């Protein structure tokens, strides 16, 4: 019986991801979602429920609204079936069955709340508790522990455990500076092992021994070197794996939860900021299947302690070679005086938008600079002062068009000059997921990196791109045969001297293969941004005109810009820095204006797909710092070019005027194939004469743990740098770090 059912369910399990319907010839399917499998009906607690064929019984029970206790089963991991907590009673079954490991069968009758079920679960719980230490009062999981919760219902009030040797003792493992282990508490659910194997792609964690002697560990002394390692803390149903930076800092019931958006990369992961008083105590992921599923990167999770160090808390004016704290009034009038003194006119007034600038302030700053008669708007990247090679007129030229969940439909991916593992860690786990469960082929051009999935290495420079476009090589053939091919161009390519040429090659490739790469269902041309503000900056047209780019600026406004090359700023220029950290940008400034960090303002963030999401403020900004757009609005009054919005709603009206996508929250507006093709045409035309030097593509992120002022100020990230990148200088690795150290 069991065998019959598992065979029946095989077709659906053969490729649960990306298995698409094959449309009948001559007719195109309207949507490209996966095929709907046949549904089956069964009865759970007397309630009829219909689920897709191939579902586990636990999913059917959940669909019927029954709560099934579980430890090992997790929605986003493979099924292990080893905790036995999810036992239910099935009609004509001699014993209770583990509902996670049992396929839902049509017509079966299931009970989840009978005395038999209770007794069985109580038995399981008793065995789990036999070896679980009674240290809930000092355990960090206390208050949000699955074992604690479920023992309230299924635990016995006294123990029958009287071993003279006491409870099982297991040595603690060292998994690095992020994950604290207390292996006595482990109940061997193996969620962490499955996560490391399937999602993170570090096949280091495993189990040794069996029965009562089973242990989770690395077998050898080793840290868990993954940029997603913090997620095992969430997954652990007990307190065996807890967060090291958060250890003994707060209890879950003391925290205020604020649902917000992460800015450490351009994925726009949904996060929940847990704060107490004026401090952010921890950052947790928020489930959103369209963006980050249930994971966030370690930088998103643990860089929050950087929010308390090196903050700008008062406006600063440079006098001689040191900064003097000032009032807002003084600082703003100092800027007005500075602007007048430099005599900057027209395009000599420049604004540079950094990685962490929010959309509201970008819009306000662009309006301000334009009101001052300048068109000199730059983004904070290499060559950011010039107009970007891909242009900003058509959105699909610089966005991640297939959307993040769309990655799972791709059957061939070409990565050009990008290491998604470090530039968009959560997105990378999607590629890995697809690579594991489908026949996805990945090609890679650029500096060799460990991506957590296998790839065909094509080369490191433009030559490889040219060969690929010419159809030479094995991977080019595979790519051509693919049904939904996907080209992912890294954001570093547009900063590269050969960038224009690469874009030209790939855009014309897409044009010639548009029947597969650009259909109404599929846009296989995508750019992976790595800075949280970049898509928004391009969306609002925060780029300079060709004429303005040639002007030497005399007045420079740095909005969260901390990657600027100090040499690019001329000595006599007047520099204003607006931001939240005393990092590189602040050192270059004549006046510093303290802004709010991402946990302190409710602003819009546009991720690499072009999805606008609204963050929210969890804690107030420290000291005299203010919301960024309000600072710019105040400055506009001092400069006698008053901006026409008085509150954030009016500013969002203005954003709507610029681009409605900026305020259509949580939705992705896809570009139609015709417009996308027109965009590519413009792109090919504009880069036709581009020359190339043949320099290798380098990875833009050398140290994943320190990419922005917040993570550079974070102690935890410095520890990670030391532990995982082998940098003994605790993160102060390059010139920039040294400069930042004194500020």
């Amino acid at each position, binding site marked *: 019986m069991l065998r019959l059912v598992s065979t029946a369910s095989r077709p659906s399990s053969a490729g649960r991801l990306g298995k698409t319907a094959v449309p009948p010839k001559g007719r195109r399917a309207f949507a490209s979602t996966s095929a709907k499998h046949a549904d089956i009906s069964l009865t759970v607690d007397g309630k009829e429920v219909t689920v897709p064929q191939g579902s*586990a019984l636990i999913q059917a029970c959940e669909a019927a609204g029954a709560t099934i206790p579980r430890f090992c089963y997790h929605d986003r991991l493979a099924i*292990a079936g080893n905790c036995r907590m999810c036992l239910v009673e099935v009609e004509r079954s001699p014993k209770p069955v583990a509902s996670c490991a049992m396929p839902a069968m049509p017509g079966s009758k299931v009970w989840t709340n009978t005395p038999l079920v209770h007794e069985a679960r109580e038995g399981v719980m008793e065995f789990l508790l036999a070896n679980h230490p009674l240290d809930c009062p000092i355990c960090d999981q206390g208050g949000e522990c699955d074992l604690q919760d479920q023992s309230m219902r299924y635990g016995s009030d006294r123990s029958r455990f009287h071993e003279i040797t006491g409870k099982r003792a297991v040595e603690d493992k060292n998994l690095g500076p992020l994950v604290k282990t207390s292996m006595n508490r482990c109940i061997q659910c193996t969620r962490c092992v499955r996560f490391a194997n399937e999602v993170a792609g570090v096949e280091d964690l495993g189990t040794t021994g069996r029965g009562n002697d089973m242990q989770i560990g690395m077998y050898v002394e080793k840290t868990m070197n993954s940029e997603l390692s913090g997620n095992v803390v969430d997954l652990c149903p007990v307190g065996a794996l807890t967060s090291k930076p958060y250890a003994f800092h707060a209890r879950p019931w003391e925290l205020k939860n604020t*649902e917000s958006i992460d800015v450490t990369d351009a994925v726009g992961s949904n996060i929940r900021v847990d704060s107490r008083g004026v401090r952010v105590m921890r950052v947790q992921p*928020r489930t*959103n299947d369209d963006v980050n599923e249930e994971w966030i990167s370690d930088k998103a999770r643990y860089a929050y302690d950087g929010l308390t160090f090196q903050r700008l808390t008062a406006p600063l004016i440079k006098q001689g070679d040191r900064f003097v704290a000032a009032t807002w009034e003084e600082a703003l009038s100092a800027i007005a005086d500075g602007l007048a003194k430099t005599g900057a006119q027209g395009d000599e007034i420049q604004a540079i938008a950094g990685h962490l600038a929010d959309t509201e302030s970008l819009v306000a700053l662009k309006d301000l600079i334009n009101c001052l008669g300048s068109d000199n708007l730059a983004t904070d990247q290499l060559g950011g002062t010039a107009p970007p090679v891909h242009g900003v007129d058509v959105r699909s030229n610089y966005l991640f068009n297939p959307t993040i969940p769309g990655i799972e439909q791709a059957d061939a991916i070409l990565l050009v000059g990008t290491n998604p593992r470090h530039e968009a860690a959560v997105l990378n786990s999607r590629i890995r997921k697809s690579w*594991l469960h489908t026949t996805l082929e990945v090609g890679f051009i650029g500096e060799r990196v460990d991506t957590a999935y296998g790839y065909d290495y094509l080369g490191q420079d433009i030559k490889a791109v040219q060969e690929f476009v010419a159809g030479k090589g094995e991977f080019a053939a595979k790519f051509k045969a693919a049904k939904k091919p996907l080209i992912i161009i890294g954001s570093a390519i547009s900063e590269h001297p050969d960038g224009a040429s690469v874009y030209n090659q790939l855009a014309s490739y897409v044009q010639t293969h548009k029947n597969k790469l650009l259909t109404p269902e599929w846009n296989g041309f995508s750019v992976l941004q790595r800075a949280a503000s970049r898509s928004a900056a391009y969306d609002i047209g925060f780029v300079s005109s060709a004429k303005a780019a040639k002007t030497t600026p005399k007045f420079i406004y740095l909005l969260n810009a901390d990657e600027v090359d100090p040499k690019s700023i001329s000595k006599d220029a007047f520099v204003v820095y607006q931001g939240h950290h005393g990092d590189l940008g602040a050192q270059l400034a004549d006046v510093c204006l303290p802004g709010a960090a991402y946990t302190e303002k409710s602003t819009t963030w546009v991720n690499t797909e072009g999805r606008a999401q609204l963050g929210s403020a969890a804690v107030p900004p420290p000291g005299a710092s203010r919301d960024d757009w309000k600072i710019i609005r105040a400055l506009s009054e001092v400069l006698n070019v008053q901006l026409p919005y008085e509150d954030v*709603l009016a500013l969002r*009206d203005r954003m709507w005027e610029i681009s409605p996508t900026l305020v259509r929250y949580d939705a992705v507006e896809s570009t139609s194939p015709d417009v996308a093709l027109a965009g590519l045409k413009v792109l090919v035309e504009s880069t036709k004469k581009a020359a190339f030097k043949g320099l290798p593509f380098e990875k833009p992120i050398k140290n994943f743990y320190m990419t922005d002022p917040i993570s550079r100020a974070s102690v935890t990230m410095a520890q990670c740098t030391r532990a995982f990148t082998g940098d003994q200088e605790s993160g102060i690795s390059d010139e920039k770090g040294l400069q930042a150290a004194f500020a």
Partner: protein
Amino acid sequence: MSLLNAWKQAALTSRSTGLKHLITSTRLVSSESSSTPANKKSGEIVTPEAPRDVLVADVISGAPTELRHRPVRIYQPTRNTMQSGSGKSERWRIDFDILPGGGRWENPLMGWASSADYMQGTRLSFRSKEDAVHFAEKQGWDYYIQQTTVKRIPPKNYAENFLYRPSKLRILRTK
């Protein structure tokens, strides 16, 4: 009634111009004032105007007017990723944005968290989105509705662990 109308008028005129509708036009608040004819003859019978859909509560509740300048967020909290239980995630919540500036501080003597924000401890939960929206409208608050994300969990199967794949093995299971 007339007293109430006068109050309403006063409240509506004193209201800042900032209450523009949100872009998603979720803000369909009750600010439509039906003009009361002021110059009526004393003997004339005043027909009571049809009641508006929503009477802004703070017209008579005495809630501080500053409250109306603080947008609220209506959303369904997501499941805590630390726990497998999904309790409390089906209700809708109204959250206030925090007070900017000095709304919160650490008490210098004890290090306790102090606040000047009288809404910081308020947690409003509702059975449905409509209830929450109705309440926010009744209070005259600007609101933003955060859409609930759709959960997409594919059918899962224990047999997948042992599935034969003709291609090269891509995962080494260490469990």
